[in-house]
């Protein structure tokens, strides 16, 4: 699904160069639920952005579904994001003056789907996140947990192959966080690959795989056995 | 004061933070106001009253005393010598004068090259009626023909190199005349005593000649002369005095409403007598036109300036909208800071003072820009519509009202945006 080989990213200012990512090699398989953890400034968000093609990289290669994203045009990258990748952000990033329905519809419009198909998909996604009754609300009228569920609905309405979540529960209380996690697990069980940045060790443990990043380098990626972890 | 200087400083800082939108706001306001100023100048000057204390007492009697049959006709715009003779018989007016203008050539002696001059051929009361200031000498004692001319100050200076030329001999179209008086600087704007054919836009004349002398010397009007019979206009001194050769304008001063009423009655009686005598076949049509309405009566209103006034007003509106739009954007950009100030305890009143400092600063820049644009606009208009060029000067009341308009506009442009910024919900803005 995702293959990174010797991927590096350098931030340059006039005086210094910072290696945000250094020789990253990573393989994420279809259907995996991977948690990405690391201290602040370790480069985990940069990695997620590169995986989401929101940022480019300086060296190495990134194959998504066997296709290298290197050298793709802006239009091609946009198409790739739109069709294969769903995003969930810590601050939800819903568009304030669009209704819930309009927010979810946005990526589907970019894909050029017909109105009837868009409607069907949006309703399905709203059903899944349990917000069908709130479709005409504005984001500001919903609670944080509900907003994040809208964001998830927006991400999955396009039926992406991979879902990138950047601390999806960071702004939520524990009850809501749990609901969101359950929703993500449910989505993962339906076959969607999920890569999630998190600070919460519990969440990391719940994910099928735990990837740690420190100073721009992957530490030994440890595959947790959920059962083993539980018993530990 | 110290506090206000602080506010000005804050204004400067916020300008420096986003100079482009500020500059654009000033630019747009300046252009809108400048164009408006330029046209307003012409509009104001063209519609100003040159004799505010007596213009309501001065009238032009118009009479249809012409030997042609015509129904529903306006009286001719100019009168004949015999019309004037009859109109002059009334003693109701406290002053009365007939006039026309002609071209001539003036020189000191036969050796000099003749200098083209514009001659106002008129009567004694002209000078008192229109408040013409005299520098040297005295006006003709009566309306009889005399070989005496009155010079404008500029003409005297041009010919003699000095103003006191009383008693000097001159050649006007090779006839000998004596200077009896020299006028002080005088320019009646608009020149309402000669509004026919839009001549109220022209500068004052160079020399003044008695009406009888003008007729004796066969001067034809250089603006409008019409014959309604077979008068030979080369024989002005004889046939011109009796025939229907119309070229004169006539003004009377009627000081009271009673006098005005009495004069109207006099005109009605005159028209009736003339009709009975068979000298004009048409139905009488008398008009006593007040000086204030004379331009309108002759249809000489500057329609281009009027049309342009409408358009510049629209343009100013557009610029105001635009500038407030720009300034709204600027204030919304600073909204966070506004909220922060209020959170730190600034009252709305203090924020309003800050706003006033903003307005003041903007007004200063805008006024400077608007005056520059206005000046350029006037130059352009003088170039494109040269007829109005005498009406392009700024006087104090005009300038002050223009400044007031500029200040009000700056205030309006700043008011709504800053109100919006300072009255927004505090809490929400800080959280955002």
């Amino acid at each position, binding site marked *: 699904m995702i293959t990174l080989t010797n991927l590096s990213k350098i931030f340059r200012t006039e005086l210094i160069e910072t290696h945000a990512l250094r020789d990253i090699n990573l393989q994420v398989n279809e259907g995996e639920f991977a948690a990405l953890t690391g201290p602040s400034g370790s480069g985990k968000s940069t990695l997620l952005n590169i995986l989401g093609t929101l940022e480019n990289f300086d060296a190495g290669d990134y194959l998504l579904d066997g296709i290298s994203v290197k050298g793709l045009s802006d239009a091609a990258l946009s198409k790739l994001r739109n069709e294969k990748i769903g995003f969930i952000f810590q601050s939800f990033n819903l568009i304030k003056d669009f209704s819930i329905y309009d927010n979810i519809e946005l990526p589907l419009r970019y894909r050029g789907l017909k109105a009837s198909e868009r409607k069907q998909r949006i309703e399905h996604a709203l059903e899944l996140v349990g917000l069908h009754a709130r479709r005409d609300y504005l984001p500001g009228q919903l609670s944080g947990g509900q907003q994040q569920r809208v964001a998830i609905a927006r991400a999955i309405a396009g039926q992406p192959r991979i879902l990138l979540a950047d601390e999806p529960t960071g702004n939520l209380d524990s009850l809501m966080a749990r609901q969101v996690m359950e929703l993500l697990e449910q989505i993962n069980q339906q076959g969607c690959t999920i890569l999630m940045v998190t600070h919460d060790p519990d969440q990391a443990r719940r994910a099928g795989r735990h990837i740690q990043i420190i100073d721009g380098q992957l530490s030994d990626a440890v595959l947790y056995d959920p059962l083993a972890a539980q018993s530990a | 004061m110290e506090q206000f200087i602080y506010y000005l400083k804050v204004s400067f800082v916020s300008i420096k933070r986003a100079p482009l939108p500020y500059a654009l706001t000033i630019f747009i306001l300046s252009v809108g106001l400048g164009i408006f100023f330029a046209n307003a100048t012409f509009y104001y000057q063209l519609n100003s009253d040159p004799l505010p204390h007596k213009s309501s007492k001065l009238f032009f009697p118009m009479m249809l005393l012409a030997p042609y049959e015509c129904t529903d006709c306006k009286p001719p715009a100019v009168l004949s010598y015999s019309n004037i003779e009859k109109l002059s018989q009334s003693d109701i007016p406290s002053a009365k004068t007939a006039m026309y203008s002609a071209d001539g050539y003036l020189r000191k002696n036969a050796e000099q090259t003749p200098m083209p001059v514009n001659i106002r051929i008129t009567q004694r009361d002209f000078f008192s009626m229109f408040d013409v200031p005299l520098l040297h000498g005295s006006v003709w004692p009566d309306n009889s023909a005399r070989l005496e001319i009155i010079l404008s100050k500029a003409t005297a200076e041009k010919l003699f190199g000095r103003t006191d030329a009383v008693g000097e001999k001159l050649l006007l179209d090779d006839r000998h005349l004596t200077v009896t008086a020299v006028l002080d600087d005088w320019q009646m704007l608009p020149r309402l005593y000669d509004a026919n054919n839009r001549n109220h836009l022209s500068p004052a004349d160079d020399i003044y000649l008695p009406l009888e002398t003008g007729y004796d010397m066969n001067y034809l009007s250089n603006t409008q002369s019409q014959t309604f019979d077979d008068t030979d206009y080369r024989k002005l001194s004889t046939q011109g005095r009796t025939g229907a050769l119309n070229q004169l304008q006539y003004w009377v001063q009627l000081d009271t409403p009673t006098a005005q009423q009495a004069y109207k009655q006099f005109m009605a009686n005159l028209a009736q007598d003339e009709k009975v005598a068979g000298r004009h076949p048409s139905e009488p049509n008398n008009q006593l036109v007040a000086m204030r309405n004379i331009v309108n009566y002759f249809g000489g209103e500057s329609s281009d300036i009027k049309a342009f006034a409408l358009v510049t007003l629209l343009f100013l509106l557009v610029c105001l909208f635009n500038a407030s739009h720009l300034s709204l954007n600027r204030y919304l*950009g600073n909204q966070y800071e506004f909220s922060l100030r209020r959170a730190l305890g600034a009252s709305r009143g203090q924020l309003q003072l800050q706003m006033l400092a903003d307005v003041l600063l903007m007004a200063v820049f805008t006024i400077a820009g608007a005056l520059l644009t206005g000046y350029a606009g006037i130059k352009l208009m003088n170039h494109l519509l040269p007829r109005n060029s005498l009406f392009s000067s700024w006087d104090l009341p005009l300038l002050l009202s223009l400044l007031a308009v500029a200040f009000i506009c700056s205030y309006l442009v700043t008011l709504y945006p800053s109100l919006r910024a300072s009255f927004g919900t505090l809490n929400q803005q800080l959280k955002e």
Partner: protein
Amino acid sequence: MSLYLLCKVLFSRKVVTALLLLQLAMTLALLLNSLLLAQQTQQQLNQPTGLDLDNTLLVQLKPTTAALRVYPALEELLNRQLDAVQAVPGVIAAAYSNQSVLLHGGNNGNIYVLEQQERTNVSTVPMYFVSKGFFNVLDSKVIQGELPQHSVSLDAPGSPDVVLTSSLADKLFAGTPAVGQQINRGRVAAVINDFYGQRSGDHIMYNSVQVAPPYGVDWGYSILLRTDPAQTESVRRQLASVLRNVESNIEIYHIRSLAEQHQHLYRNEYGLAMLLGVLSALMLLVTMVSSYSSTHFHALKRQQEIGIKRALGASKSLILLELLSENWLCTALGSMLGVALALWLNQALAQVISIPALNWYLPVITIAVLLLCVTVATWYPAATATRVSPATATKAL
């Protein structure tokens, strides 16, 4: 691109959008009426005059001494001046006339067929008193009759024969032969093709010409010259000195080609059209500034939104298109309002000046120009906005 969503964005900013719409509407209204006026002036300047504007020169002059303004000295002066200018190389024909062609008003009077004054009276027809070369200068085509060959004094018994322009002859005689008929100015000798006489007359092409020395020259007189196209300029340069050599006691008011005279005649209309043109250009500039700034600020405020959209798969060009469409939609709405406003302004202006009514194609052109300007002005800030990094924007706040 969804119109529905665009409208939604637009109307979520009520005040700003209303201001923008109003402004666009006013700009369009003004632009349209300026164009109309410019078009009218252009048409007036392009209407046929029946004259060779470029190769006919006009000198307006007057003797400065009284002695030269009376006969016979005057006629002698006129003939000497004509002889002198005719001798200038490049002059094909020369004539004097009591007044020029292409004037606003001048020497004119009523004209009618004798004994039929009631029916045929035309109130304002210019009267030209000219030397016989006049027709040659204007290169007149004789349509009926024969041109008078001799100058006859106006004071001689009987009046000099009259030459009419064809539209005046048609008006007076309605198709029947004019030659030989008696009108109040004399016997009609010939009918020539039309030329532009006086603007304030009954009709610009109504003219009557008599070969006679003018009554008097109190208002000055004209010398008209037809020149060899190749030598017009050199003739023009010499004219003043040639005339002054003949007689120094003259004032030359101006020397113009008829093309310049024509321009001069419509100077006011031209000036007004130019002024409105300048104003329109300024208005377009203001509109461009406004489009620019509204896009600039709007995009700045919506960086996050643009970032989200980019993350959701909108390409840069799509974002650009979205931002441009917002302005296009605004312009389109403003234009609709503007056409209505233009109609109103057109009627308001028609109260004070002569302006043609609005046609259908001018709004289309004007809207196209407006759209172009708005697009140009929006392009830069919109393109800048698309360069927002989606990674940073979605992280913001």
